[in-house]
């Protein structure tokens, strides 16, 4: 799975799950504020990522995630580490 595919899958479920317009998701935008995430919303991200990519995320994985780009990179690294 290449980077573009990861981004497309992630963006599609973010739009669906958090009911935001595709346009507001840009790589440098702050993910938490843009999506209006509260602490419990992370459970949705964890479950969706696991079901789509087969990788398990924990709290520590989100420590350095600020922008959407950080999020894509983190998932990509997780997928690579699993392969």
């Amino acid at each position, binding site marked *: 799975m290449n980077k573009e595919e990861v981004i497309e899958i992630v963006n599609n479920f973010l739009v669906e799950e958090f009911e935001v317009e595709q346009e507001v998701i840009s790589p440098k935008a702050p993910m938490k504020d843009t999506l209006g995430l509260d602490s*419990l919303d992370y*459970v*949705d991200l*964890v*479950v969706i990522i696991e079901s789509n990519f087969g990788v398990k995320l924990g709290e520590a994985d989100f420590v350095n995630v600020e922008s959407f780009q950080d999020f894509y990179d983190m998932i990509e690294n997780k997928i690579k580490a699993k392969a």
Partner: protein
Amino acid sequence: MSKIKCAIVTGGSRGIGSAICQTLAMESEYHLLINYTANKAAAEATLQKVEESGGSGEIIKFDVSNSEEAKAVLTTWQEANPDAVVEVVVNNAGITKDGLFMWMTYQDWDSVIQTSLNGFFNVTNFFIQKMLRNKYGRIVNMVSVSGVKGTPGQTNYSAAKGALVAATKALAQEVAKRNITVNAVAPGFIKTDMTEAMDESELKKLIPLNRFGEAQEVADLVAFLVSKKSGYITGEVININGGIYS
């Protein structure tokens, strides 16, 4: 395929746990997971009563105090039942190892904490993410008058149940946004195997209602708390003790 809604009752084979299973079988639509550790015959008897009441259920054997075993058994069950959604967790499993604190062994301290307190973690933590995702849940923790008042001779049990009271209040605030309620039920003297050796005729003098409670009376309260009718109650500890402590 439609989702199968389930309720798990730990320590569901005997006493209050068994009464809870039977009551939920009659008063709810939940498929019951009757957890037990050692007494298979009692678990089977409870399942039979559940089915005779028109409910459905199954037995699920694991020791709640063993985190690895609990996780493994629950994972296997969930994988075998992908359409099952556990909406209700009743943390009822508990043991007592009574004795004066000055004589208490570490083992008696630890085993009581492991079952009552860590058992809550091992089962509830397994289901909580799924409940959060499902945006609905009912968690009921069986505590005890010992956990709110403290009972001499039960420093271990009182500590475990008192900690569970605090965990109830904390978790209730964490998950309320997702329509999950967490409450505790604190029974006093209830007629079960656990109180069989007690002298009711003497002890009832201490109880304003002048009798031991029935497991059914506790089960009725739990059935209310796991129902949709109780949706605005969370983080509460509800005493059911005949007035012995409030």
